[in-house]
């Protein structure tokens, strides 16, 4: 049975824990009265841009040093969640700039009307094919192709096209991501739409046996791939550059498909209704500056939109495949509705 001392001690613990709770409650109510500073520039971005290995921590100090403007970078989850936050706050915008809207969700941003037009300094020097927003709100800052990555140690003869990917030789060997919850997943759906047009449903039916699983996000899908669950995974054409740079390995290679690959272009824009328009414009100009663009390749693992940035040697492992045109926005959104039925059949 319990000795007297431990009995006393546990009584003390129980009381201490309750007291801690009371202190927490009072601290919470006290702190919640403290107002937050409102004059700084607020930038919304997706989480991997903000994370310690992302581009954010590298470029924010450069921006503050160059302009003297105090800015805070806020993560709102994935890029879908960033847009959802803008739409939710439309009546009373909290952000001044948004980073990370791509072509695939442009039409949603368009419909919600949450962005302002601004043409940053230097935009005229950017390749016109990368300037994906015809209304000039989103300024492109980086781009890259989606690709299937191949584990050279687990598979002898990789597929050379989307069509070959559906062959019986690749039964249960492919990991994809769900287009409803992941950016590459949506990119892959667009890929099949661009390559097969109206026949996309038939292609998915033929592809089904090859799919081992479809994960909710890129991270779990790629994680399964690196743990050896399947030799083929949907990712980015630049993924091999990461493995080269961080692990000095060429085990994982990107496959150049005959049909061509869909391109993802990421853009930034000023949020409609900002009270910091002047400073937001300076941030938009900064996005196209050499300092910002030079950090992109090794932190966001995409190609900078400026053509005068020298790419790191590891990028020799990334492929530059033929670009497929983007499918029609209405086709993409109707395919998204139908996809679950099609892919389950």
């Amino acid at each position: 049975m319990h000795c007297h001392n431990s009995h006393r001690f546990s009584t003390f613990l129980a009381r201490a824990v309750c007291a801690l709770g009371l202190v927490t409650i009072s601290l919470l109510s006290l702190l919640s009265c403290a107002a937050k500073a409102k004059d700084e520039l607020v930038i919304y971005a997706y989480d991997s841009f903000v994370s310690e290995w992302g581009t954010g921590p590298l470029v924010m100090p450069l921006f503050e040093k160059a302009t003297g403007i105090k800015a805070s970078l806020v993560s709102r989850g994935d890029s879908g969640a960033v847009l959802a936050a803008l739409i939710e706050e439309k009546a009373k915008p909290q952000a001044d700039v948004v980073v990370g809207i791509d072509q695939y969700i442009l039409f949603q941003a368009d419909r919600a009307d949450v962005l302002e037009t601004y043409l940053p300094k230097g935009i005229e020097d950017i390749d016109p094919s990368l300037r994906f927003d015809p209304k000039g709100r989103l300024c492109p800052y980086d781009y890259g192709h989606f690709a299937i990555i191949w584990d050279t140690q687990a598979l002898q003869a990789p597929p050379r096209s989307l069509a070959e990917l559906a062959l019986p030789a690749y039964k249960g060997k492919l990991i994809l991501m769900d287009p409803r919850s992941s950016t590459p997943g949506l990119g892959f759906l667009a890929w099949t739409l661009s390559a097969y047009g109206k026949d996309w449903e038939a292609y998915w039916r033929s592809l089904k046996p090859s799919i081992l699983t479809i994960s909710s996000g890129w991270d779990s899908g790629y994680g399964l791939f690196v743990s050896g669950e399947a030799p083929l995974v949907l990712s980015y054409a630049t993924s091999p550059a990461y493995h080269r740079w961080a692990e000095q390995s060429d085990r994982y290679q990107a496959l150049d498909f005959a049909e061509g690959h869909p391109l993802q272009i990421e853009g930034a824009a000023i949020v409609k209704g900002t009270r910091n328009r002047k400073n937001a414009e300076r941030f938009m100009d900064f996005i196209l500056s050499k300092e910002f663009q030079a950090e992109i390749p090794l932190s966001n693992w995409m190609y900078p939109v400026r053509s005068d940035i020298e790419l790191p040697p590891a990028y020799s492992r990334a492929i530059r495949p033929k670009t497929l045109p983007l499918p029609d926005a209405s086709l993409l959104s109707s395919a998204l509705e139908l996809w679950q039925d099609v892919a389950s059949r």
Partner: protein
Amino acid sequence: MSHPARIGGYKPRGSGRVGSYGPALIPLCLIFIPVLIRLSLDFLEPETIRDFSAGLSSAQNWRIYGFSLGQAALSALLAVLLGFPAAFMSSRWAFPGKRFLRSIFSIPFVLPALLLALGLSGFLGKAGILNRFLSLFGIPSLNFIYGLRGILIAHVIFNFPLAARLIGSALAQAHPGSEEAAALLGAGKVRVFFTIILPEALPGILSAFFLSFLYCFQSFSIVLIFGGGPRFTTLELGIYQAMRLSFQAGDAAALALLELMTGLILAFLYAHFSRGRPLMASLRPKLLHKAGGWQKGFGILYLGLAAFLILGPLISIIIQAFSAPSLRARFGSPSLLNFINLFSTSSAASSWKALGTSILLGLCSASLALCLALIANAGPMRRRGPSYAIILSILPLAISPLILSRALKPVLGFLPSFISLCIFHAALALPLASQSIYAGLAKLPGSLEEAALSLGASPLRAWWEIRLPLLKQSIMSAFLFSFCISVGDLSGPLSLAQDGIQPLSLLIARLAGAYRFPQASALGLILLIMTGLAFALVEDA
């Protein structure tokens, strides 16, 4: 010390005082009001109402709903079937390895879904431990975990220890005399089992079934990853899609309402059958038979299976954490490199900070949850308290983290992140914390506090001097359980963290998002050890 009223396994409904419902309503309102406001705000837009009715009449949504229900019911059934022997054996028999069984049942799976998936695939996947073992005998790689059976296996592994605990505490409360009396009167073992033991365990079995049902119903990433395709989609993913991709508030509201209503029914049934039995009770028996020959054999066999299922994913996470991040082999030579990368290079500062943030956040949110739970149970201490008061405080379990974070965001959005996370985690943990306190209270003799009150002590003093010390065991277990919930949660940090706050779960997700999977596993192991220690403390309390 047994009480005649408990022979039937749970207490008959007493004459509750209306006043006691009041405190129990406080946490209920704190959580439900923002959710209701959020849902009704959504309905102010005419477009939403149109989408809402479209969402409710969509055949696809109902198919998803049907699947969510079906897989959850099947998973819960299997979890109960597997959990029952453990509960039965540890409450009735003494056999070697029992302590071990009890301690592995305390290993909690509060890891973020990503790590659960990596752990399970490293164990049962195509290149997992089991398939590697089989390949030693020339058996080709088998598919264990992709497809419907993958969902079921994953759900069973994460839920059967829970079922064993709930059923075990029902059996531990049963009156041992009736079994012996029946045996003395000549009833055979089988008859005793079916006429006495099974009815005694039934409330426990049902409560375990409905809680597992609820958890599997709200499951999302696990279903998608192991289901092997979009055929297997749960309601939670539908809500996610409607909110993040197609931006249809009406569709999201329709699905959320469907999920909420079903969740309420399940939470109600769980609360109804589990009255007075805490989730965290240790499997401590009243009466033990020494296990006989076949019983011993069965016990050891079962022990092996349970250990295999629980330890498998754990071992695979450990292996991944200690494997060098080399690309040559999956289970490379053991190495501390991942930990060294985390704690001694340039990222050391943020790793330590994340560890500190998680611990501090866990402590603060757990104490907040505990205080709210104590307030909810502040009513007069009576042996046959109003049992529906506890049902009221368990009901918020019906709200999935996704819906809760969306509902609380406008309320908490303007607060500093640490505070909003603290409140969010407290809200997540409150139902179970409250239940733990209630269960502790139900075991106490009310006379002590009444005596203090009649001798002139103020209610506050009676609470501080008598109820609090008597409840210390429940308080500690509620606290530690809430701590674990906070440490393992990722939905809060992803949706509410704004000013650079980064708890462990978020750091793990970010490591994985930046290709650094071995380091994510290493950090996951640290998180698992932290929660494991907390649960070991509960077991010892």
